[in-house]
């Protein structure tokens, strides 16, 4: 049985805006295990990035703030600990990589310098020589050729894929327990995407960390995740292991997402038919409907969904399988 290292419970994150307060994350719970990858899937605005940032306490505040819930890392609620303690965890025990490798690296420092910085912060006993050697080692680990010379190069001298590898190197330098990857491949070419995902899988096997993979791309989910949580309007609407999710989705939204993946042998809509889509748009967080958030786009909507029973609750239908729907698909 894999070791549980992170437990998020009933997380609520709010943002104050000119037009009022919105709840970007509304009661989200999940667990992360060593050596396993949890995928968090959703469209833009579903709250998945905000969830990830909360784990690291990187939500800019103001205007955001964590209004409720707990995040237990190895038994301690990181939302409660003082900020300087949190800093010893960041980049050290829990690390994060971001979507835009172009801009996520500091342009005026060498790649090596930026990796070494992590050691300076969290492994101060190392001397210059050791730090430098470890930086080169990390570059080798993530598959960058001629690391000894690359280490002195600047971010702009590397391609997008290389930069993301550097980000991965930076984040894994201190062998964290958890790696949070926020859309790590979205900004990259498809072929590079595959390489990066393969790299991450390989490193997970070698280093044993848990990964939270945030993405909107179900293809990425299929490649990398063991368990999946689907988010919509700040809530988890379905959660299960990856096989069940793809073979037997229970929430109409999940089914819609899966159906809209184009494939060469898709017969949806006929051989020359239109690509299936989910009709409508994600509602604005300022104007959420009464009842189920998905009602205006759902193919199986009924009167029950429109308000008289409030919002559907997240229900565990089978061990480890959750769905938030009045009429889950079977």
């Amino acid at each position, binding site marked *: 049985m894999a070791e549980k290292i992170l437990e998020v419970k009933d997380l609520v994150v709010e943002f104050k805006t*000119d037009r009022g307060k919105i709840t970007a994350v509304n009661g989200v719970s999940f667990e992360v295990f060593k050596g396993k990858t949890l995928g968090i899937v959703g469209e833009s605005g579903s709250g998945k990035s905000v969830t990830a940032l909360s784990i690291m306490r990187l939500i800019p505040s103001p*205007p955001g703030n964590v209004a409720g819930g707990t995040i237990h890392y190895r038994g301690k609620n990181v939302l409660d600990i003082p900020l300087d303690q949190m800093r010893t965890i960041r980049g050290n025990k829990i690390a994060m990589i971001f979507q835009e490798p172009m801009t996520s690296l500091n342009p005026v420092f060498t790649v090596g310098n930026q990796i070494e910085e992590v050691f300076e912060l969290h492994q101060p006993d190392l001397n210059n020589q050791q730090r430098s050697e470890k930086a080169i080692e990390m570059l080798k680990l993530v598959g960058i050729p001629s690391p000894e010379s690359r280490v002195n190069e600047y971010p702009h001298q590397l391609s997008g894929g290389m930069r993301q590898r550097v980000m991965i190197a930076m984040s894994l330098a201190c062998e964290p327990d958890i790696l949070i990857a926020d859309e790590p491949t979205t900004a990259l070419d498809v072929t590079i995407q595959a390489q990066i995902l393969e790299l991450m899988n390989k490193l997970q096997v070698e280093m044993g960390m848990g990964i939270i993979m945030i993405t909107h791309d179900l293809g990425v989910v299929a490649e990398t995740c063991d368990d999946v949580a689907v988010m919509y309007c700040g809530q988890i609407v379905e959660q299960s292991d990856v096989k069940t999710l793809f073979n037997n989705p229970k929430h109409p939204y999940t089914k819609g997402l899966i159906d809209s993946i184009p494939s060469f042998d898709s017969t949806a809509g006929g051989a020359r038919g239109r690509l299936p889509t989910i*009709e*409508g*748009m994600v*509602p*604005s967080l300022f*104007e959420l409907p009464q009842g189920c958030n998905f009602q*205006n*786009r759902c193919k199986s909507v009924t009167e029950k969904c429109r308000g008289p029973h409030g919002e559907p609750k997240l229900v565990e239908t089978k061990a480890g399988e959750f769905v938030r729907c009045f009429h889950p698909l079977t």
Partner: protein
Amino acid sequence: MSDTQKSKSLWYHAWESLTSDKMAVVCLLIVVSYFVLAILSALGFVAADYAKEIGPSYAPPSSEYLFGLDIFGRSVLAKTIKGSEVAMSVGLVTGVISMIIGVFLGAVSGYFGGKVDEVIVWFYTTFNSIPYIMLLVAITFILGKGIIAIYLALGLTSWVGLCRLIRGEFIRHKDREYVQAASAIGGGDFRKIFKHILPNVLHIVIINFSLQFQVAIKSEVILSYLGLGVQGVPSWGTMINDAKLELARGNWWQLAAATVAMMIVVLAFNILGDALRDALDPKLKGK
């Protein structure tokens, strides 16, 4: 069935953001009042008696003479109000002149590039190499004294900053996808410049305008000190210039009136300019 979200344009957002900032609204009102005052004064409805001797020379401020009197016994209050005509018109005309020249040259230079760009860049680099005050004084010297000379001198020396900014923006934008898209549907140069790129740089123009306005007001003061300012009609610059002699005798109120009157409107413009920048520059949202 499905709720379509109203897509609010940048301008709508900007207006909302601006009007919700109380400070900005106050400043806007101040600026507007100055304009109104200047117009009323020009039409003769207020401060018409600015040239009349209404009391003893150098009478200090009192309940009778609110801002005191100057050396000729004229009301400092009336002179201050009259002076707003020069100030507001100078600011307005200068802003407009520098806007026209700056935007035109910047757009042409940034958009067409090549030789045209080289020439224009050479032109404004040359302009910039000459110290501002020198150029200003030289031009007014040549054009003679008077308000038109000031308009021209200030206008001709203040367009370089805007030109540079606009040029930079056009360079950035002209290769952007949305402009290429315009090409793809058959849009020509003219259309691309005016319909597509220009609206995206309008916020820079507006912000720059508010900046130029107050620089112009302050420069007019300096020109007046140098004796190159407006003749005949009192301006804040001439009032401050007169103050040179008065201060030694302890007569501070003319200097104070002109300084404060100018400070209030310039401060209002500065704050307004900041608020405009926050409201209009989409990149700055959230700061």
